[in-house]
């Protein structure tokens, strides 16, 4: 019974890690694209 509870808890943690890590990769890619645009994108010109 004890091992079962531990196994369930461990699986929950592992699921959190997998879901979280996958989502974090998406965050990394999307914010990375924004960063590249910020660093290498053309500055907005003010012609006024």
């Amino acid at each position, binding site marked *: 019974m004890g091992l079962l509870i531990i196994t369930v808890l461990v699986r929950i*943690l*592992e699921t959190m890690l997998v879901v979280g890590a996958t*989502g*974090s990769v*998406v*965050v990394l890619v999307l914010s990375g694209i*924004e960063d590249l645009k*910020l*660093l290498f994108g053309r500055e907005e010109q003010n012609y006024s």
Partner: protein
Amino acid sequence: MSSFGPTSPSNRVRIVVATSVMLTFISYWRAAAIVLNDLASSGFYACGIAEQAVGKSAPWFIVAVMLFSFAVRAVYVESCSMFVRGGVYKVVKEALGGTLAKLSVSALMFDYILTGPISGVSAGQYIVGLVNETFITADIHGWIPRAVHNIFHGTPHLNVNLTSVVIALAVTIYYWWENTKGIQESSEKALRVMQITTVMVVILLAWSAFTLLKAGYNPVPLPIPQNLHFSKESLGFLSHSFPEQDLAKMFGLLGILIAFGHSVLAMSGEESLAQVNRELAHPKLKNLKKAAIVIAIYSFVFTGLSALLSVMLIPDAVRVPVYKDNLISGLAMYMWGPLILRLIFRAFVVVVGFLILSGAVNTAIIGSNGVLNRVSEDGVLADWFRVPHRKYGTSSRIINMVVVLQILTILASRGDVYVLGEAYAFGVIWSFTFNSLSMLVLRFKYKGERGWKVPPNITIAGTEIPIGLFAVMLVLLSTALVNLATKSVATVAGVSFSVVFFVIFTVSEHANRKKHALAKEHMKDHFQLLQSDTVDRGSLGIRPGNVLVPVRDYNTLNHLRWVLEHSDTREQDVVVMTARVSQFGTAAYGLSSEQVFSDYEQTLFTRAVSVAESVGKRISLLVVPARDPWSAIAQTAHNLESSAVAAGISSKMTAAEQAFALGSAWEAIPEPKKQFVLQIVQPGGIVDTFRIGPHTPTMKNEDVALLHRLWLNITREPGLENVHHHDILTQALTRFAHDYGARDHDNIVKELGRHSAADGPLPVRRIADQIATVQPEPTRPDRDEGPQSPKE
């Protein structure tokens, strides 16, 4: 204009409380340097600790943590882009409630307090490692005298852990005193340290690449469960239930998570990003993002790559046994090249390590002080802690408490970096977790302005689902939970610490609630707080040409009395201001008026009003939050179009130094700006007067005579009959500026140095390449002169 006297609502003294902190803004490079001083210091010890816990594949986990720090950084950027008021306690309280908010602040405090000991002890390990290595090399060459040999019964050596403790204590005590005196955190210093560190990193990477080509490398085992070798200590409470090497095989992913948890302290320092945010120059969000990119890339390159290189280049036989606590030094010693060059580079690594790690000790004291000040402002720490130091005006009681805790931690660790690192990880991971959890909850609860959101977000049935934020929070929470089980030292120390702080906060909050209710009643009777985002004449209802009187200590208000006695307030308004100084580390969020106007300000202004009443004149009262009091005074004088600033003499600076500090702050104000007069009123009624900003200098009689002689001679020249004295000065100054900027720079500096030495010390500190704008008047006692107006 304010009034005083009876306590009917209309006659209450009006106090304008500015809630926007008056900051001296910094570029994103400087902001990145400040954060990196904390973040990059982890690179000196993180991999050594991780390898002891999980084995040879630790560098991959450090790399993973550094990549994940890009996502954590996104959470901090979002938190910084929210326009909320209150300290970290108030913000978390809004999201998660009072209990979790107190726990969150406790975890943050644990993080800050542990930063000092781990950095100090690590700096000691690097120094002692170098000294012992030098002894060994000297002994091999027969340079150690026999007598010294006999004393040490062999090659001389220092006890590594004991000496590290002594060095850590010395550094901590040094910064305790500096903080008690009230040193300013300088972005200039941080930038210099990072420039030197960058030189070291470039040499390290280039030389490592060369060594890899010449001498080959050891492969770094991939981060898979079979390659994880947990030590008994690294499994913490789980070590009693599971044989260490079976655990990873039983639960493959759990092993990965445990290893990740042991490496997470590599990103400690990321939280400093939130604290430099408010000081970033316009455009703030764009600069914040740029600073965040610089920080993430730099820490990835330094911490991540140096971790990989240490396993690739340092042989297994010595890496953990000899260099576990000074891995970068070990890397220097295993480069391809002559021993002497390697030793020189190692010495350079130690110098850089000492600079950055001892800087982190300072950051830890400043950060802890800042967080506790804010917590005190939020009402969960007794006001007693915030009473200013009698002489230096700093929150010395908080500084003392923080440093005592740090010293106890250093002594308890006995110089063991691994133990400190394990405990430190508790504060790091839980403060990140609470922050991400708060941000997630605030996505649904907080409806105010937000500059940026962590991507991706999808909208279902009109509700925005913050997928990215949720994902980052999941990784942090799962790591924090696993660490609770596997880091027994951290869990016991962290939980005990948090419980103690939780109790202190709860008791203080309870006591403060009663006290503040009484104080509020008193306030309602006497003062009327008017909140204003910015400082201007309109909000105070005053006229241009007013006199600004900065006050700090309610026991020294002589200068206010002097100003009131010498002014006609029907003609010239007198504004009494106090700068509520928020140190570095407190500027993550804006301030509410209750935070700015505390018990102390109430007592201070009650005394100021008493002085005004005794003289029978009116005053206006103003509180401004600021990072630097000089900058606050200069900006306020500028915004209020004051003609004079009348200050008391400082206990730390001479009148001329005060003038120089104010002059420097005035220089930082963008054009157009007006000059004003600074009057320093000394206790005996002696007044030193200075003009702030460019002004006509006072000329000596002999200089005037010389000018006149030149004019006489020049006007005798044909065609120059109409030349004026000022034409000669213009010509002379133009030529001087040309020579100073080009060929004769050094000679001019030398000449001026000689001249000033002959005339006695200059009244203000001079830097060769900086033209000071402050000059004292030649005559000193102006006893009977009132506040002045600037003369052109």
